[in-house]
Every structure is written in structure tokens, then in C-alpha cells.
């Protein structure tokens, strides 16, 4: 039973805090860091102190075989991290880059195709954050960490290749 939304922009706050988002915040998925991860990075938002630490492991075929995160922060930053971990399983790193691009595009206001939306799963509820521009950074925190992890991984691979 929904409580009366506040203020004159009725619905606005409910667009932001959709049930699926709050559910992820309350029961985050993959909420544990993995040992010896190939991908690891930390996202920190100095504006609010929110933090997300992200880890992932790759299998022999270069696909993501496991993900885990921890962190602290507002409902949006933590739920976004949780939803993100839900979509990464089994993807190649190029596919991961594709997901990152689509998610960022959605947050920047691009209208996604039905197919693109499907691939983002629960993450589509974060589209409601667009109405609250100051909170977009919260939704992107985990994604920045993920991108850093990807960049770091590529860099170390390149180094390895040039040294051998």
C-alpha cells in the first residue's frame, strides 16, 4: 500500500524510488567482494561520501564468471550497483562495454529500443532518476567503478603483452 507521495509533483518521488529499486537497496545482489578478482575498482563520490567497491572474475574464455560489490550510500547508488551486478554475468568484456554504453545513454536521455531495454533488466527503473539531475551521479557511481576496472584491466593486459 503506497503512502501518499509528497509535494506538488505527485508521482515524481515514486518514479525515483520505484519498488524494484528499493528492493535492490534492501537486499543487494552479489553483495560480497570476490577473492583474487581480475577486475577490481572503487568508486567514490566526494559530494556525498557514497562508495562502491566492485570486483569480478573472468573464466578461461574471457567471460565474467562472478561479480561482487560492497559499498555504502543512498538507495540509488547502492541499488544501481546491485542491478548492475545482475546483468554482467556471462558477458565478454566487449559486451560489458556495450551495456555500460547503453546504460549511460539511457541516463543521458536517449530513448532505448525494446531490445536494449530488455538487456538492461531491472536497470530500466533507473530511468526515473533523470527527473532528478542532481541524483544521476548516484546512479552512475557503480558504473564509473566498473569502467575504471575495465580500463585498469586492459592496461595491465597491454603491459603483459608488450613485455612478453
Amino acid at each position, binding site marked *: 500500500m503506497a503512502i501518499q507521495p509528497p509535494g506538488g509533483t505527485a508521482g515524481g518521488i515514486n518514479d525515483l524510488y520505484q519498488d524494484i529499486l528499493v528492493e535492490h537497496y534492501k537486499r543487494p545482489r552479489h553483495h560480497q567482494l570476490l577473492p583474487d578478482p581480475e577486475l577490481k575498482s572503487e568508486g567514490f563520490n566526494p*559530494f556525498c561520501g557514497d562508495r562502491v567497491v566492485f570486483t569480478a572474475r573472468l573464466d578461461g574464455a574471457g567471460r565474467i564468471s562472478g561479480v561482487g560489490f560492497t559499498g555504502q550510500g543512498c538507495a540509488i547508488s547502492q541499488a544501481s550497483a546491485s542491478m548492475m551486478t545482475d546483468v554482467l554475468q556471462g558477458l565478454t568484456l566487449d559486451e560489458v562495454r556495450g551495456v555500460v554504453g547503453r546504460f549511460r545513454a539511457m541516463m543521458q536521455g536517449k530513448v532505448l529500443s525494446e531490445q536494449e531495454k530488455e538487456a538492461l533488466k531491472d536497470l530500466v527503473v533507473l530511468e526515473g532518476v533523470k527527473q532528478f539531475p542532481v541524483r544521476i551521479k548516484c546512479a552512475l557511481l557503480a558504473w564509473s567503478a566498473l569502467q575504471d576496472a575495465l580500463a585498469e584491466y586492459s592496461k595491465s593486459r597491454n603491459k603483459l603483452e608488450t613485455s612478453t
Partner: protein
Amino acid sequence: MFDPKLIRKDFPILSRKVNGSPLVYLDNAATSQKPRQVIQALVECYEQYNSNVHRGVHTMSMEATDRYEAARQKVADLIHAPSVEGVIFVRNTTEAINLVANTWATQNLGPGDEMVVTEMEHHSNLVPWQKVTAQAGATLRFLPVTPEGTLDLTSLDTVINERTKLVSVVHISNFLGTINPVNEICRRAHQVGARFMVDGAQSVPHMPVDVTDMDCDFLAFSGHKMMAPPGIGVLYAKPSVLEGMEPFLRGGDMVREVWYDHATWNDLPMRFEAGTPNFADAIALGVAVDYLQALGMDNVRQHEIEIGSYALQALGEMEEVTIVGPTEARLRGGLAAFTTDVHPHDLGTFLDQEGIAIRTGHHCVMPMHNKLGLAATARASFYVYNTNDEMDTLVRGLKKALAYFGSHALKP
């Protein structure tokens, strides 16, 4: 005593609506709203006598100069400075502190020396000193804060010792609300021959501050937190101390005579105001000071004790709310930082939908948040135009927010 409901009529912005509800502005520790008189002073300056100060012989330049210097006198009177020589216009508190860091501190700190701040400093009274002490090979030491949020003065005589050259302390914490015993700390600093600086960003706008009685060597504060525009602030310094200081910025207006290879310095306070100053906003600051003086700084303080008590009690009655800092309104400035089960940012967004503006985050006091094990807090801060009715609105909004997020079963 003044009536905040009447004062509100002087502040045009307070009659606006935000997201369909009347604005309840409780972010005064970040910046204050401006009365019509201050806004009018800016319009008057630009419409009637805008001219560069200290330069022209023409009528308008003299008018602008007179008003600029009159504003300086008003500021001197407000803080009970013995003369205008020690009143330097800067951009804000941060610039005032950086001025002292880049002049007095770099000239006087050396290897083995110590400088002291408190654990509750705003980043602006911490980060400049980190650099200066590191460069000098000096040590930055901290007066500790008790779990109740007050300074632990049992270590005053050991932390401030014969090696201490400079002590810089926040007068009222913008996070804990604590009013620090600056007179006592100043006495100790002078006892060991150290200079004493006060960060008055949250005190000068809200209570009587008397630099002569306190005997501080430096006081920094910002205009925008006391009804003036942003971009104008003040460094007060004892003229005798300023005399021994190298200029901070060099250029026009701060010189007496200039040759190709050297220059001599202007008198105080101009020596520390290089380039065209922000005279329009300084003049507006003078008008803001007039406004505050007409209310009476004792009354301003009294109002904030009253509204602070009301807020502390109303928030304290809410089981879900934990207030940070001293529990008694007399021991704190007009602000209250608090935590609930709901993350401050989620709370802030919800309250904003109700027209209530509060601050959320670490309020530029990250180390103290870390020490208390907090990543972020919500903060309501008050000024002369806030009413008890607005505190009721805040409490209603908080209850609604907690019910809303509770309905999502956020709490375990």
C-alpha cells in the same frame, strides 16, 4: 526582540514556492538569503555610481570609494576591531585563511615547529595548513573532540606548547554546531607565544563577536552567510601582525611607488588588496551589517537559541532521529546535523519535493564524519527569518519521509 515573521517580508525569495510548496529554507549554514535592502544596494551601485575605487578624481569614483571605505568601517564596528587598518576585504573565509597560510605561516613556520587546529575543522581550515606545514617541515596537531562533540580541553596545555607557532580554530562548527571556547584557547596560544586565528564563518553572522575582547590575531568570515552577496569576505588581522607580513597578491592598489626593478607597499589595509576590489559586494556587505546591527547581534543569537531549542526538542522526540553534537541549544549555533535510517541524500530529495531545503552530505567536514563513523548526515540550519512553524513543517516532512521509506520496508 524581533519578530521573524516581520523580517520575512524583507526577503523576497522566502515567498517563493518550491515543487508546489512554500519554501522552507533551512540551509543557512551553506548560504543565507538576502534582504531587499542588500539587493537594492547592488542595483543602486550599478545604476548610480559604479566607478573604480581609490583611483579617479571624478565624482563617481569618490562616491564609490567613500561607500567602500564606509563598509569597511561598518565591518570593523561589527567585530569591535579598534581600527579599519585590520579589515581586509577578500572573497570568502577560504581566501582569508589561504592569505594567512601563504603569508604569515610560510614566513614563520619552520622545521620542528608545530601548528594546531581542531578535529572538527571545515576543510577550508585544514587543507591550506596541510600544505603549509608539510612545506615548512612543521607538524600539524589537533585538539581532540569528545564523543559528545565538544573540544577535549584536558590536552590543551600539551597540544599547544612551546613549539606551537600558530593555532587556528573554528568558532562554531558547521557540522556539530559546537561553539568553541575561543577566548580560553586564545589565552593558551598567546601564553606560548603563538598566533591565534579564528574561523568565524558560522559565528560572525549569528552572534556577537568581539576581536578586541577575544584578542585573536586573525579572524576570517564570509559575507554570503550574513545576508551579503557571495564573493565578498573579510580577513581581520591585528595591524601590528599585518605590518610584519609580506603581501599576498601583488599588483595595482597595493603599492605606494613602483620602479622597473622594485616597488614599495601601500598602507594597511590596502597592502593586502591587490587589484580592483569587489567594491559593489563590499558595499552590499556594509548594508547587510546595517541590517544585522539594527536587529542587534544579541537578539540574533537569542533567536537562534530559541529556535534551536525548539528544533532540538522536536527532532529529539523522534525516535528515528539521532542528533550529532551537543544536546543543549546554548552550547551550539543555530544548526542541527542528524542521521536517520534513511540515507541523507534520499531524505534530502524527499524533503525537497515538499519545498524544504536542507543540506546533505559531509558538509566539507569529512575527517570528523569519518571519526564519528558517519559517511554523511542531514543538516538543518537556521537564521533570523526562520520560525517555529517551519520547524514543525520540517518534522512533518521527516515523519512523512520516514513513513514513505518505511513503507518500502527499508529498515531491517
